[in-house]
């Protein structure tokens, strides 16, 4: 065991001595996370998008403020007109909004489409506005019914009613399909899984092939140690390398890109750890079976890209054909992404990822057994 740790620490030091390692461990994957996240960006929480709406409020009465709070409660991000942030629609509240409502007169709130926004966004905002108007009317009826008409002019009374728990609540969910991960919440796990696989197989396999070429593997075999210790050391070194990449991505993702890592960070880490084990074992297997370093790199890069594409690292599997979904779940990348999206994008806990973790552990055991059998000095 001591020798395995020595080999692992030694290998990590060797990997990190290579300048090119930093490019492939950090820079290139980070660029991919950014571009893929940008290309797959969504309106926010994929389960409950909050489209930004630019609001022009000409009214200085309290009811317009109450109305905006209701819009916010219904799921719209209210954007100040002075803010240059992109908005998908606009709403203009007239100057006499409060006075006309309190005077029992109809009032028109203008709904403005923004150039460049899609029809889907506009429809979603219109729906939210309608819901906000209905909610305002409900609050109004409740106020008059319970406190009399005099309460209508009391902002505190309005807010008290708004703050009450709804007597009836409708919970709506996507029917027939899962919500679609989007933005950096989608790209970070996908690209991390792809580059973990690529880097650990390429670095692990090429390093083993080089060690075989220059006789270092034979020197290992001539030491008073068992072959299992050598494989364990190689796996440990690669898993340490994977750990470095995971730590970097989770920190940059959380604090640089604002990706919510879900309520269950330990489950995220365990999932990544098991996947790292698989990738490390595949690296040792590649290095054991393929003699030339160039071939190891070519095979591992190609296999990693294919597995990543098929498994939903590049685009959400939720929008992929059924055959691709089946294929994805024949691969460890598919199961790893499944678990990570559950945890990161949809806030699931341990229960939701037990099955993917079980399958991934099975993959890890099989690939490790193959790596032990395939290692030739």
């Amino acid at each position, binding site marked *: 065991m001591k*020798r395995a740790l*020595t*080999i692992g620490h*030694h290998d990590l030091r*060797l990997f990190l*001595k*290579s300048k090119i390692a930093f490019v492939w461990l950090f820079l290139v994957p980070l660029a991919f996370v950014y571009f893929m996240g940008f290309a797959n960006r969504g309106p926010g929480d994929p389960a409950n998008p909050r489209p930004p709406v630019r609001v022009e409020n000409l009214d200085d009465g309290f009811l317009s403020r109450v109305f905006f709070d209701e819009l916010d409660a219904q799921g719209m991000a209210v954007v100040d007109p002075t803010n240059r942030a992109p908005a998908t629609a606009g709403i203009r509240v007239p100057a006499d909004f409060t006075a006309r409502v309190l005077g029992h007169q109809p009032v028109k709130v203008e709904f403005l489409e923004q150039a460049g926004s899609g029809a889907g966004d506009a429809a979603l905002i219109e729906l939210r506005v309608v819901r906000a108007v209905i909610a305002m009317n409900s609050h109004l009826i409740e106020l008059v019914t319970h406190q009399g008409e005099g309460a209508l002019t009391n902002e505190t009374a309005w807010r008290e009613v708004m703050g009450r728990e709804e007597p009836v609540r409708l919970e709506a969910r996507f029917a027939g399909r899962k919500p679609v991960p989007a933005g950096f919440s989608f790209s970070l796990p996908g690209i991390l899984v792809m580059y973990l696989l690529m880097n650990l197989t390429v670095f692990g396999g090429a390093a083993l092939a080089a060690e075989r070429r*220059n*006789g*270092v593997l*034979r*020197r*290992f*075999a*001539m*030491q*008073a*140690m*068992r072959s299992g210790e050598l494989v364990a050391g190689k796996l440990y070194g690669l898993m340490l390398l994977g750990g470095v990449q995971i730590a970097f991505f989770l920190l940059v993702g959380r604090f640089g890109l604002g990706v919510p890592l879900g309520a269950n960070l330990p489950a995220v880490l365990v999932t990544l750890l098991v996947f790292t084990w698989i990738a490390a074992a595949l690296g040792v297997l590649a290095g054991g079976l393929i003699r030339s370093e160039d071939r190891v790199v070519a095979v591992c890069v190609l296999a990693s890209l294919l597995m990543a594409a098929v498994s939903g690292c590049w685009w959400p599997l939720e929008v992929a054909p059924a055959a691709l979904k089946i294929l994805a779940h024949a691969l460890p990348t598919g199961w790893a992404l499944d678990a990570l999206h559950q945890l990161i994008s949809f806030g699931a806990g341990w229960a939701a990822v037990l099955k993917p973790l079980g399958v991934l552990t099975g993959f890890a055991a099989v690939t490790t057994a193959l790596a032990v059998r395939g290692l030739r*000095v």
Partner: protein
Amino acid sequence: MSLLRVERLSKSFGALRAVDGVSFEVHPGELYGLLGPNGAGKTTTLSIIAGLLRPDAGEVVVDGRPFSADPQRAKRIMGVVPQELAIYEELSARENLEFWGRLAGLTARDARTRADELLAALSLADRAREPVKTYSGGMKRRVNLGCALLHRPRLLLLDEPTVGIDPQARLNILEFVRGLQREGTAILYTTHYLEEAETLCQRIGILDHGRLLAEGTLAELQHRLSGDRLFVLEGDLSGAAPETWPGFGEHFQMIQRTDRQLVVAARDRRDPADCLRELLNLPVRVENVTLKRPSLNDVFLQLTGRELRE
């Protein structure tokens, strides 16, 4: 008791019999040379002893116990220097030595101390912290050698440790190896350099086509050529047929023959002057006759019919 005993070792790769019934022993403090041309079976023999290959037949006994009975024990006794530079070129000499020391079972502190000793002994201390890739060929060879010595092995297997380096670097390594032998290390040294075997090894085994053709001290091997002198005849020998010369076959053994040269050894211990007279009376025009002590190459010639350098 011998520290290494190899008994009737055999190994084939398909139809090729790489090692064929090889037996020899190496004693503590002895430097045993395994001499042979490329492809003779030296590295295969050494690989079997080191546990890299399994023999088809025969046995390796290390310090009185068969290797197969406890490979880990045998490997702890051995240090192996492979022919290739099996070191990490990105790392410094110190880092290489310390790493292999840790794998040999030393603590971090002991590995550091031992690495210091070896760096000094191998004249590498000045550049110990520089990456090995910046070293000369000779320095890399010394690092390669040092990596096998961290755990102070009692038996050292050296597989052509001076291949591809300049004469001065070779002399440095040979002197270091002699020092190890003087300290009591049993050394099995494979080489295809005659001079190394002649000057370094106490006993020499000559290997060709996987078979150990002869073994002994240099003097014993020379004595195989019926004495300690050879006669070299020079002249136009292109049409000569020595086997038809009267009395030649009875008195002389032909070692080598070319169109210009004939090397022979006397079959008995007669006076050299008598031998010279007989040779000058042969039915062939001889321009020059010289007398020389037999070399290992002559022994190899006599055993195999070809020069080791071919």
